């Protein structure tokens, strides 16, 4: 039986809500996996939509690391990344769709195996919207 790798991902600091222009700092680390099993690791800060419509996504920060980018070819040790958050889109809980922000780490192992870990956060302070009237058209 193969053990699944452990991806530890966290936002640095107690906050889960950020203002536009704030600096977001996050850390991730791998465990329960051999160093030579890791093919690549991608860290990103992104927004995506959820709801009735098709999902849209926008990547604000993206970093892809290969074993050649790390000391001794080992991508497992603690890695910290930081980015300044943009002014839009702000997190939004709408009536028929939602905009969510998150940090995401995607791990690629040998033989095409892929693992993903994400941590949500809020950007801005737009209050939730209430439905008033709906009209659907084909």
């Amino acid at each position, binding site marked *: 039986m193969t053990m699944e790798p452990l991806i*530890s991902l*966290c*936002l640095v600091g*107690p*906050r*889960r*809500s*950020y*203002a536009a*222009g*704030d600096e977001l700092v996050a850390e991730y*680390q791998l*465990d329960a996996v051999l160093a030579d099993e890791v093919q690549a690791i*991608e860290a*990103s800060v992104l927004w995506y*939509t*959820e*709801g*009735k*419509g*098709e*999902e*849209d*996504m*926008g*990547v604000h920060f*993206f970093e892809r690391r290969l074993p050649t980018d790390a000391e001794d070819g080992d991508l497992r040790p*603690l890695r910290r990344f930081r980015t300044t958050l*943009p*002014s*839009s*889109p*702000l997190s*939004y809980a*709408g*009536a*028929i*769709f939602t*905009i969510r922000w998150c940090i*995401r780490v*995607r791990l*690629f192992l040998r033989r*095409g195996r*892929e693992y993903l870990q994400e941590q949500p956060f*809020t*950007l*801005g*302070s*737009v*209050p939730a*919207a*209430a*439905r*008033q*009237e*709906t*009209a*659907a*058209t*084909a």
Partner: protein
Amino acid sequence: MPRLFRLLEKKRGERRTGSNLVGSVGEALLYGALFMLGVTALSTLVAVHFWQPQSAWYSVGVGFWLMVVVLSSFVFTGGIGLIWTVVRLGISAERRSALATHASALDLVHEAMPRSKSHPTVPSFDGLTDSPGTDLAYRLPSSQSPGWRLLAKTIFALLWNGIACVMFVIATKSWLEGAPQWFLTFFLVPYFAVSGWTIYYLLQQIWIHTGLGQTAVEISDHPLFPGREYQVHLSQAGHIDVKSIELWLTCEEEVTYRQGTDIRHELCKVFEQQLLAQGPVEVEPSKPFRVTCTLPIPAAAMHSFQSEHNSVHWKLVVRCAPAHWPEFERRHPIVVFPGEATLRAVVTPAQTGQATRGQRSAAASIEVVA
């Protein structure tokens, strides 16, 4: 292990709940099989044609070329599909999106618009500030194009009524020849009812389009920021008696999604505020109705947002009810940028507690590993 046997998966836009690898391999196999089928069948067809030209099955004619076209489409679809699948293999959605963002940043058009870079998901307002107003800074364009809609309705009415005329002639001829077509005759009754409605509706639209004068909305500044107040000017030309005319500020969410082979749109109004309501008004060509009022944008308003399938639109809507005429509505889009109040972070005590607990557990797991 259970995921190997999952037959039904939930689709979340481009993401799926199933295994990406299994999906990609399945897709590659499908396109590969289609390509191989196309190549094998096409080469067999061509080879038989050259080696046994007398064969009745593959003789040159419409059938032969039809087969060539169909089989070539197999080869083309399979080949392109396979290449597309292979190119996407092993590339995450985030990496594709990051590459697309990087590519758009190199675009010369985007280079000329620094606003797009600072607010990439706020729709462009360039087309909204092209036209200067006479009373205020900008005249807003209408989001609808009544000319095209009228043309589409005219074409529909012409086609429907043209077919009605042909069927009427056939039915009349059958009666005159003493062999009445009963089904056609009865079918013509509801068909003519719809014909009458299309003619009435078309005339109504022509009256609205030509009889009513222009509705113009002007605004003191653009783009708009939440928490600020602006001036808006409304003028209605023409020669009509108006029972009521209203100006509204609205915010709508709009989403697009696929349902089977259909692409559907859904609109949902999330904010509506009346800015102006005027009672009976007489509009004359020499004296158009003109009024200026205040446009307050709520401090906590969501900014305008536009992505491929989801959007938040702000609009100024004019609703007019003329006497003896059908009511009409004209919409003028505006762009609202993120406001100071909504750009701030809000941390409630509950969130702080949750965040601290989450942080502790995550930090603990890292410490254990380290």
